[in-house]
């Protein structure tokens, strides 16, 4: 593995929120991470935990009523120019960065191309958007790109319309489009979710090959831990708008420290080839307008529950919404009832950060399957 040099992208304390009629949804609530050149960072979590909102924030694609409220999105350049903050960049300069320095691949290939324009035309158009080439040259490059991403008979295929292509082919075309400008960073927002498994593997292989060829960093968003193990160098696990665990891929899979990460791994059927049943995580992601006090995961947390059942943790009856519910006082903290928000990331080992007050490391908690 190449030594991690300067980061390509630094996201620092990113806050993205959506003003709705019922209140403010904090979709991304203080997320920080770095991606290094040539490396892949995976952003993992259940649906609705803020993975895509993070990606869209980096691309500045958050439209009102959403806004990026706070934080920095520092994009470093390959040469020694100072980094730019994508959050405060003007729309005009942002356009120069989109496609040329940061590319993006979307989740659903069937809706990511304009249905009334031929596929090749759309790729050629994106080539011409950031390189001063004429139509013929752009078309020529388009055919080459399509050939490169494994489209058979690219010159004939390029003249066809998106509905004449299969999902896997379109995803290849979209990847071709995203890397046309040779970006330093590629954001892949669940690029294989809408595809069948064999196509998934081909697309992942393609992404890895292109990463080797161009040396670009990839921010890979997925809920599929199998893909994470395959693709990622580093992993950030997100829950309810926050990063709850951050580690390199080996550490995360062998010594998961956060109960949520452990639960995710336990939910992965046959991950270690043991003949056990997959263990679902009880409950669901909390409603973004009614987040639990304290640690946002504690209502679903096995560790929290077990510690309380063992009598090793204090519980308290706290009135909330006209009902009294028993909650774990120690996962809310402090005891005087003032909510200080959840736990923040703290290192448990070198390069391994966890946002949990109780976890020490994976072994200590030992959430094992039955």
């Amino acid at each position, binding site marked *: 593995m190449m030594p991690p040099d300067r980061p390509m992208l630094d996201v620092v304390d990113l806050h993205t929120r959506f003003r709705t009629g019922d209140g403010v949804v904090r979709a991304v609530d203080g997320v920080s991470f770095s991606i290094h050149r040539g490396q892949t960072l995976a952003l993992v979590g259940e649906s609705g935990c803020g993975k895509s909102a993070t990606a869209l924030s980096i*691309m500045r*694609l958050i*439209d*009102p009523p959403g806004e990026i409220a706070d934080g920095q999105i520092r994009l470093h350049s390959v040469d020694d120019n100072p980094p730019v903050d994508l959050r405060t960049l003007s729309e005009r300069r942002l*356009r*120069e960065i*989109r*496609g*040329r320095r*940061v*590319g*993006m691949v*979307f*989740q*659903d290939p069937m*809706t*990511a*191309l*304009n*249905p*009334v*324009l031929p596929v090749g035309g*759309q790729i050629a*158009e*994106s080539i011409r*958007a*950031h390189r001063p080439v004429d139509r013929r040259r752009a078309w020529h490059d388009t055919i080459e790109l399509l050939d490169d991403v494994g489209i058979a008979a690219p010159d004939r295929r390029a*003249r066809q*319309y998106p*509905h*004449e292509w299969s999902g896997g082919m379109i995803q290849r075309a*979209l990847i071709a*489009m*995203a890397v*046309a*400008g040779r970006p330093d960073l590629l954001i892949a927002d669940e690029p294989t979710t809408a595809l069948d498994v064999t196509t998934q593997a081909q697309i992942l292989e393609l992404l890895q090959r292109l990463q080797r060829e161009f040396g670009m960093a990839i921010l890979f968003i997925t809920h599929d831990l199998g893909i994470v193990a395959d693709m990622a160098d580093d992993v950030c696990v997100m829950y309810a708008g926050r990063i709850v665990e951050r580690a390199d891929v080996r550490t995360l899979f062998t010594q998961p420290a956060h109960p949520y990460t452990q639960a995710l791994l336990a939910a992965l059927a046959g991950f270690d080839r043991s003949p056990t049943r997959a263990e679902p995580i009880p409950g669901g992601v909390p409603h973004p307008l009614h987040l639990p006090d304290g640690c946002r995961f504690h209502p679903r947390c096995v560790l929290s529950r077990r510690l309380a059942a063992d009598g090793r943790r204090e519980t308290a009856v706290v009135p909330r919404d006209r009902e009294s519910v028993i909650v774990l006082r120690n996962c809310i903290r402090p005891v005087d009832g003032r909510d200080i928000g959840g736990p923040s990331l703290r290192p448990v080992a070198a390069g391994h950060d966890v946002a949990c007050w109780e976890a020490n490391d994976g072994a200590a908690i030992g959430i094992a399957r039955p």
Partner: protein
Amino acid sequence: MPNNTSSAVETGANRTPRRRRETQTYRTWRQFRRHRTGLFGLSIIFTLMLIAVSAPLIAGNQPIACHFDGQWHFPALVDVANKIPFLSFVLNKSKPFRFAGFDAKTAVGDDESAIWPVVRYGPLETTSDGLARPSREHWLGTDEVGRDLLARLVHGAVVSVKVGVVSMGIAAVLGVLLGGAAGYFGGWTDALISRLIEVVMCFPVFFLILSIMVWIEPDINNVMVVIGLTRWTGIARYTRAEFLRLKSQDFVAAAVVSGAGPLRIMLRHLLPNAMSPLWGTIAFGMAQAVLTEAGLSWLGFGVQWPEPSWGNLLRSAFEHRGVAPAMIAGPSVAILLTVLAYNLVGDALRDATDPKRAATP
């Protein structure tokens, strides 16, 4: 034999069958084609347009072709050509087709070799035979100063076609620009344009046009501009809604992240996708425009007498309804057919571009 078939299957599997390019327009046309009434309407409109363009060849006092003084002349053809800007320029430069004071009727007698239009009267040509009944000479009769009504009807078609196309052209451009800006930019732009649309829609359009026409010169060009300036709201609302819907589609985001600017997004990605529901609206608008023009001309605010238009033909028929009741047939049937045709085409277009129907092959 079995060997032959299997190899044929193999080669067949290797190349996809050659078929017609599936563009949006082609798909719409395929749907439209199945609509019999729509095709009927379309054929009426095409016929009408053909009549309008070649009006001097159908009714006029100039021969289509005649041999005179050792030379061939094509006076009526020149009349047609003169309506087409570029062609008239070339013709006038190249050769004097018609010399000054050429009176074909007296110069070319019936014995001379000449091809005449079906109706040998011009739309403004008076005869001594006023308010005549339909006859072999005047198929639809004549008006109070003896002008052939069929000739006037044919030349009146020009106005109807022009009004439909030009006024809806103005309305479409205005509507797409304003509605598109409102849908794409949102915020204040949207609020402002949406309020403007609502204000314009508040007025009953015909009376709005009437009250504008009172203040300006009653002229066909003014009528077209005024209809265009008041009929854009429906198109604008459609465009705004379509842009709003399309703006949040993935392919727009994909275009944005590959570095496309707002103008490219609007023209290349939003507009082509937004057009299909607009065609129906435009066709209905044309029917409305034809009716509005006829109404204005009937009231005397549109095409000015003695220039023919279906509206003022209807007016003069109405004034002489006691003496010559047959006068009313021509213009009323013409208006009815035209409006019906535009509406049928609009209906068929609306069905053809309906995504719920497009799924059927």
